[in-house]
């Protein structure tokens, strides 16, 4: 029993942690510590990436190897650096909104929400009830499709080329279709505005969502049948890339990785931003902090998201979707600053804004979960085989658009 109940908010014991037959499971995981520099002269240095298919974009790891074992690993990035923050500081508040879509391009609606939330804090805008529900629905759909594809990619990186990823993408596509009919774009949604949402839901959209949400658990069951007991999966993931609770907190790790290490910290529960205090859902907590737990946590989180969606779809009221005080043109918040954060699928996504009363933000800062979750990559990989780094890296779930900005 691993990715299960610890703490009052944790989820029920739906998770199973089957162990593979001993001959595979115990295989030489113990010898991690033997790696470091007995023989520094004979280390092999290789550069993994930036065009390696497992790096999710242009990302490089400078790896020093002792035989097959990792001794040193330095992540190198910045290849996709566009200075998003500088661009936003030279444009109006509204003009930064479409750029936030391009941070973590898998989860544009979460990014929109985080930015809108920060600006609302800065300017003191109130979000109408209906808009809050729409935000929860879109953000949870985003979480579903992000976790589904992350798991798909993870399995792909373990060598199951194609099949699980395609099943995940089949589901993701249904959700992206919903986004397209809502906002006009599948991935670059640019949907939320300061004090609400841009347009009213199209006719029949909620029914479409209900259909997708009702069908989603079927996919989760299918995925579990496909993988949960798979011996190869267990051998590759259990006990690999262990991240201790202390290091996870110290390293500022957030999101599913933090919770897989056994820390009960979910910003939806801690900050209760938006209307998350109205929903009944649990936070899955892991116990081992290994790759398997991070995989399982995401599976469980999807089930919880489905629960939130069902409640939100049941309760969504009618009414306005924009704060009447909000303005499209000539938006100038008072001088001051605000830090707003949400639980994006990747972790804590925060925006720190300083206004000097002009139409442009004086300082616009993104706190990117993908970048900060990379801090402990070296610690997670040290002592494991080179092939394991790819898997460990896959569970961090980064998007380079957000790392490099």
């Amino acid at each position, binding site marked *: 029993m691993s990715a299960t109940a610890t703490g009052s908010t944790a989820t029920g014991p739906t998770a199973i942690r089957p162990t593979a037959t001993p001959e595979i499971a115990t295989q030489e995981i113990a010898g991690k510590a033997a790696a470091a520099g007995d023989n520094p002269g004979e280390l092999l240095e290789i550069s993994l990436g930036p065009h390696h298919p497992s790096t999710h974009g242009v990302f490089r790891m400078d790896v020093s190897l002792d035989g097959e074992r990792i001794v040193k690993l330095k992540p190198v990035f*910045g290849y996709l650096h566009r200075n998003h923050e500088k661009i936003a500081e030279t444009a109006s508040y509204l003009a930064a909104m479409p750029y936030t879509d391009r941070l973590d391009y898998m989860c544009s609606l979460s990014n929109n929400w985080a930015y809108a939330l920060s600006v609302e*804090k800065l300017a*003191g805008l109130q979000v109408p009830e209906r808009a809050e529900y729409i935000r929860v629905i879109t953000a949870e759909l985003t979480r579903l499709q992000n976790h589904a594809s992350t798991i798909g990619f993870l399995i792909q990186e373990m060598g199951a080329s194609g099949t699980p990823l395609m099943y995940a993408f089949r589901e993701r596509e249904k959700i992206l279709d919903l986004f397209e009919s809502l906002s006009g774009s599948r991935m670059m949604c640019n949907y939320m505005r300061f004090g609400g949402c841009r347009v009213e839901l199209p006719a029949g959209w909620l029914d479409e969502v209900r259909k997708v949400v009702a069908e989603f658990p079927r996919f989760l069951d299918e995925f579990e049948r496909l993988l949960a007991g798979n011996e190869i999966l267990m051998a590759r993931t259990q006990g690999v890339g262990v991240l201790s609770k202390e290091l996870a907190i110290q390293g500022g790790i957030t999101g599913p990785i933090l919770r897989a290490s056994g820390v009960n*910290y979910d910003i939806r529960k*801690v900050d209760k931003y938006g209307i998350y205090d109205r929903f009944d859902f649990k936070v899955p907590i892991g116990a081992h902090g290994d790759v398997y737990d991070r995989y399982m946590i995401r599976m469980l989180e999807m089930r919880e998201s489905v629960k939130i969606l069902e409640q939100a779809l049941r309760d969504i009221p009618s009414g306005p979707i924009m704060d009447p005080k909000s303005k499209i043109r000539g938006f100038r918040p008072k001088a001051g600053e605000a*830090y707003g954060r949400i639980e994006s699928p990747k972790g804590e996504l*925060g925006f720190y804004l300083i206004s000097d009363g002009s139409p442009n933000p004086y*300082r616009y800062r993104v706190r990117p979960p993908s970048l900060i979750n990379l801090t*402990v990559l070296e610690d997670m990989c040290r002592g494991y085989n080179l092939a394991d780094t790819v898997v460990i890296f896959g569970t961090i779930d980064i998007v380079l658009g957000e790392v*490099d900005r």
Partner: protein
Amino acid sequence: MNLEKVKSDIEAAVPGCRLQIVVNGSPSGQHSLLLDREHAFAVAKFLRDDPELCLDYCSNVTGVDWPDTEGSGYLEVVYHLYSTVKKHGPLTVRMRTEDRKDAVNLPSFTPLWRSAEFQEREVFDLYGVVFDGHPDLRRILMWDGFEDHPMRKDYVDPDDYEYEPTAHDAVLKRALEHSNRDEKAGGCQ
């Protein structure tokens, strides 16, 4: 968290430190604490280890450039601290450099919170704040040979880009200047 109380707690725990509450005028009401450079590390250590505050999670580290404030201006580094145990936060903590040219050193908080490691590197890279005590202070987003600090307000981007005709007049103007300069220089590049 009551900022006044936090301030008096720190003053009791770290004798000699000079703290100042920076009032935030926006409706967010997130006021912050300005630390002095000499005692900042001790104060941060107290904030992390104090059982009541227990700010064990440093979420956000960022730089801000204030070129026109107080004479020659200064660079500022802002930390947002939370607690995963007590579930409270953010406590906003800031530090200021002496000026923007030579005295740009600040103590690094990376030994206390490793989450500051990459973010302080980023502030070093984009703002030019030098963090004393950082284990690995290198450029992170820009490449190693790069000279300037692009997020500073007075940054001028180098005139070395490839011109593509676009509709936008400002780009067009710069592109013309660029090509004129090239012609004068003998048409290289």
